[in-house]
């Protein structure tokens, strides 16, 4: 522990510094920094359950309670995770009053979650070995701290889960207790959860049983990889395969995102191969498609093809794994489209507006080629390097490491093939059977191209998740936990 330490948060911004004391140590810190951060940076430990620096503080577990005395002499207990540093503050983190308050909080937490190891360990540290209060549910494992809710909203930007109801009925759930339409199966909720709660896994796709078969690190489980000749590129090949599946009776319907115009798409169920051939696939925007898949199942469809991005394929796979217990004959054949990232339609339109001064309605076509984003508007072609559009990427995409749709039955994309061909990764027997119904000429795929892009996406995810993981592991290995 250093004496008279200085905590400097951000040097680039012109900011005001304040002086406060924590457990008798005088500290200089930027005004407004949470007390908890200031304390941790000078080595004063404060226990927490619901705090990480990468999401906004919420103050719900209340374990980080400390005693403060303000300049004017007012003394009270506050949560240090969301109390801003102010001048002349005296903070006590281990005073008698603080220990008493923390003990009370731990008694409550232990009565709510008597079986959660982390809560038990923390309680034991404060001398509580058995629940002293009435336990309403022995198996309760959620302390309603909302870390998962904040991570889902602030990091990933999807808000798939949230609080619902109130009072004793308050809980974390996906809307309507149904499979979430927004969850992308990133698993961040399960990762940040301080108690390892089962609840967040119920209607989300945080955990999925892996596919079986020979595995390649960058390509995933696969039994075959090849390049298929297809004059109409990606759309054409997918259409040929699915239409053949529908005709032969191997499939009874297909759920996909149908393109409405350049940026908008709608999720549809198609049962007839002719209707299917007439629509065009949307493959660069992520739209709500899971509820449409559930509609198809509710309608009695049992042999469903599902075309989607890797994150949506994860959802479809999880739904199949979960529902097969109740509906044994349900088969979802997932066609995953290679995906580096998807664009947020709203942000993309704004970006294109500012770059090319083109109105959304004038755009005739968009495409991606050789690292360039190309749009056609008013019979003119505009192009821009993909990196320039980074700001329009959906928030969560930078944390995703799934380029070649690891959980699909068939993964398809243009990477690794010449123009006029598409690369196909066959991952399961279900996928292989579907391919057998279609006619196409095979060629050897440039596996390296797929590996390179998969690698790029993995590294990008690693780069973005590293600081988050570091903090989570540091938290888990804290003394006494």
């Amino acid at each position, binding site marked *: 522990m250093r004496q008279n330490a200085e905590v400097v948060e951000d040097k680039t911004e012109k900011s005001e510094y304040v002086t406060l004391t924590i457990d008798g140590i005088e500290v200089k810190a930027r005004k407004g920094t949470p007390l908890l951060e200031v304390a941790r940076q000078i080595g004063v430990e404060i226990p927490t359950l619901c705090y990480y620096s990468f999401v906004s503080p919420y103050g719900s577990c209340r374990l980080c309670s400390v005693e403060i005395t303000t300049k004017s002499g007012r003394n009270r207990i506050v949560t240090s995770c969301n109390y801003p540093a102010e001048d002349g503050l005296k903070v006590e983190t281990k005073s008698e009053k603080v220990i008493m308050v923390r003990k009370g909080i731990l008694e409550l937490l232990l009565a709510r979650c008597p079986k959660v190891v982390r809560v038990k360990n923390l309680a034991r540290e404060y001398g509580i070995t058995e629940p002293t209060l009435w336990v309403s549910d022995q198996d309760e494992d959620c302390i309603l701290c909302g870390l998962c809710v904040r991570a889902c909203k602030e990091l990933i930007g999807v808000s*798939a889960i*949230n609080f619902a*109801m109130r009072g004793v009925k308050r809980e974390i759930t996906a809307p*309507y207790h149904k499979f979430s339409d927004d969850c992308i199966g990133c698993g961040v909720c399960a990762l940040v959860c301080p108690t390892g709660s089962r609840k967040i896994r119920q209607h989300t796709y945080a955990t999925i049983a892996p596919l079986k078969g020979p595995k390649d690190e960058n390509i995933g489980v696969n039994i075959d990889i090849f390049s298929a000749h297809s004059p109409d590129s990606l759309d054409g090949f997918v259409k040929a395969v699915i239409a053949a599946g529908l005709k032969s009776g191997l499939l009874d319907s297909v759920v996909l995102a149908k393109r409405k115009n350049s940026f908008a798409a709608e999720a549809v169920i198609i049962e007839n191969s002719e209707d299917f051939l007439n629509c065009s696939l949307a493959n660069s925007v992520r739209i709500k498609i899971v509820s449409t898949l559930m509609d198809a199942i509710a309608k009695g469809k049992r042999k469903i093809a599902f075309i989607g991005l890797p994150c949506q394929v994860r959802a479809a796979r999880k739904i199949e794994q979960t529902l097969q217990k109740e509906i044994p004959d349900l088969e979802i054949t997932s066609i995953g489209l290679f995906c580096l990232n998807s664009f947020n339609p*709203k942000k993309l339109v704004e970006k294109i507006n500012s770059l090319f001064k083109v109105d959304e309605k004038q755009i005739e076509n968009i495409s991606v080629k050789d690292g360039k984003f190309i749009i056609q508007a008013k019979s003119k072609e505009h192009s821009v390097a993909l990196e320039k559009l980074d700001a329009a990427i959906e928030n969560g995409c930078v944390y995703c490491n799934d380029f070649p749709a690891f959980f699909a039955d068939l993964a398809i994309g243009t990477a690794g093939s010449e123009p006029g061909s598409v690369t196909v990764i066959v991952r399961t027997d279900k996928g292989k059977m579907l391919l057998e119904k279609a006619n196409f000429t095979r060629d050897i795929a440039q596996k390296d191209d797929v590996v390179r892009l998969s690698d790029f996406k993995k590294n990008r995810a690693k780069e973005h998740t590293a600081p988050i993981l570091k903090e989570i592991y540091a938290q888990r290995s804290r003394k006494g936990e």
Partner: protein
Amino acid sequence: MTNSQIDKIIAKYEGKSGVLIQLLLELQRELNWISPEAVKRINEKLGIPISEIYRVASFYTALSLEPRGKYLIRVCAGTACYIRGGLRVLDAAEKTIGIKAGETSSDLKFTLETVNCLGCCALGPVVEINGKYYGTVTPKRLEEIICRKRSEK
């Protein structure tokens, strides 16, 4: 209520922030419940995540995620009404309508709820029907009121 009517209400709130509760209250007033369709439209038009709308709608008792009947009957089961026989009044209502507290009759005519205080304990047992308060209610009187409402068109 059709989608265009829902859209019309939502349109009034477009481009403003912090309007979710006001919007939901208006939808509840017009629609008598917050339908999944309405939730979906709000999400599409205002960009508020569905989970956020569900959180707010499930939190407030003024908002209902299930269709409510034409008449919302709230029987007070607060302390004062309770000791004056509030539960007997509730029993009568349950028997007459044929539903339990918290349920809605299949013809969408009645929704029965209990409430913990309506703020006029001196008049207990109190029953509130669509905003109108009935004091010193007896099981028989509530039965009559319900029958009258039922025969109304």
